[in-house]
């Protein structure tokens, strides 16, 4: 079976000349379907850079990125948009909800761009909000929600199109213990329902939810550790 994600000799350089920053220096990684992977590593080691490439939000300087066995370099802007919309759900550390817009409208957003009709959109967005336990907050705006609630709205938005892969960059980074547990509970359930989940974290107890932990040092993977619960 082709892996969900496969990257080979991935390099990403910001800037050029003397001031060039080599964020990724020939990184290899394979993530199987249905895997639950945690990426750890020191600050500035290149974790976010890697995840942005995996989420098709950024393009690598060189190297190959195969998504479901297909090289993403072959995709044009419209197809990349389609991938981000249907195949990948991305959860940001800083939530990235659209301000002055209700939780429901934020969750509906990917469905609008997917061309789903209004009535069905409502249904699915409400279901996603129910899944993250925020059904009664559907009509609140981001500035009326706590950090934990905003992150759960962001997760609802990431999963509403039913993507096969969910990527989360420090989803609990800005949250307290209780909110973190709620968020991790949702990610656990997504994994249990068969999705591939990749998350970045600095916390060991968050990483403990995953089947496998990789450690990034200076833009390369140096440690590949399988935890007790194997998928």
């Amino acid at each position: 079976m082709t892996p969900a994600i496969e990257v080979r000799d991935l390099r990403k350089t910001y800037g050029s000349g003397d001031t060039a920053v080599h964020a990724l220096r020939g990184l290899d990684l394979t993530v199987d379907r249905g895997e639950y992977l945690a990426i750890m590593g020191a600050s500035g080691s290149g974790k976010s850079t890697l995840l942005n490439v995996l989420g098709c939000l950024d393009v690598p300087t060189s190297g190959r990125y195969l998504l479901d066995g297909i090289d993403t370099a072959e995709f044009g802007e419209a197809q990349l948009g389609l991938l981000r919309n249907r195949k990948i759900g991305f959860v940001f550390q800083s939530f990235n909800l659209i301000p002055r817009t209700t939780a429901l409208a934020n969750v509906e957003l990917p469905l609008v761009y997917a061309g789903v009709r209004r009535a069905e959109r409502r249904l699915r967005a409400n279901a996603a909000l129910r899944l993250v336990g925020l059904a009664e907050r559907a009509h609140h705006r981001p500035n009326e929600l706590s950090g934990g609630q905003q992150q759960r709205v962001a997760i609802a938005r990431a999963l509403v199109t039913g993507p096969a892969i969910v990527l989360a960059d420090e989803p609990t980074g800005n949250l307290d213990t209780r909110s973190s547990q709620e968020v991790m509970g949702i990610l656990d359930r997504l994994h249990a329902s068969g999705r591939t989940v990749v998350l970045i974290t600095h916390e060991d107890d968050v990483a403990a939810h995953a089947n496998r932990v990789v450690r990034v040092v200076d833009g390369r993977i140096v440690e590949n550790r399988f935890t007790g619960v194997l998928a």
Partner: protein
Amino acid sequence: MRFTEVLAFAVRGVTANKLRSALTTLGILIGVASVILLIAVGNGASVSVQQSIAGLGTNVLTISPQRAQAGSSARPLTVDDATALADPVEAPAVKSASPVVSTSATAAHADVSHSVSQFLGTDPAYFETTNSAVAQGSPFSADDVAQGRKVVVIGATVATELFPGAAPVGQTILVNNIPFTVVGVLASKGSSGLQDADDTAVAPLSTVRNALTGYGSLSQIVVQATGPDALTAAQAQVTTILDGRHGIGFGGTADYRVLSQEQLLTARTATTDTFTVLLAAVAAISLLVGGIGVTNIMLVTVTERIREIGIRKAVGARRSSILGQFLLEATMLSLFGGALGVAAAFIGAQFTIAGITPVIVPSSVLLAFAVSALIGLFFGSYPAGRAARLRPIEALRHE
């Protein structure tokens, strides 16, 4: 993605920051309204000039002296010239020829004084020739001219200034300290926009020359043709007689000028046209400034929302739907502002501005509206297009 969805996003975008949208709208409103209104004022001025000249009568020629060319001396227009023009044998197409001198003078009654901008000395035929009806009293007579009596017919403005609420006929006024008896009041001709046609007084030629102007050249000779059809013939006869009297040979440069009412109209309209062009230029500048304001706000709007653009792209928005959303926002703002501007201009045109009743030019409405819409579209699309081309992560990282 359907158009209605993009439209819904655009509506939400416009209503999300109401103050900013209102200010953008206001900028366009002012630009559009001032263009339409200023052009309407210019147009109003030229319309009223046309009306006032039309009020002169249809078969009138005006002869005025002209400066001589170098090397030849100019002869003044004289009363004898006027008499010669009225000769029924030499000039059968001429019904009458009134010599006119014109000056400005200060008229006073009791303790009120008023400066009359056109104090004319002429003969009784002048009233008929220039369509100047006498509303109260009567015009002076040929005998008054012959005797040099100090009588005067005053314009409506002079009458209301000197005799507020009283009947002027029979009263005495002091013109540059010389007493004149008011024998009549002219019917109002209204303002011609640039000058008040009622701020005038008419007295016998002999009296005015004797008391006020002296015996120099006439200011004008006003000739009435026997009918509208005789105007061309009258013009030819007048030219022949005056050329003979002033010794102007074939091909020589005349020291006088004959203008028909139509030619006068063209000359005066040209002046007000310049005025209109000037106003239009000022208006165009204000539209441009309004446009720059819109551009500025669109730039700020887009820059401020680059993160939002990043979020939309991250969840799968196409470049085209993002561009469409911002274009629609800009279009809605400029169309709304433009429509309000047109409404404001129509309301403003109901009022008299600087003594001129504005007359709206339909094409200026179209022009102002189209320009404002284009400004919004063009300057809205540029920053939005740039933002839509960014990679999602670049847009999301934007500060």
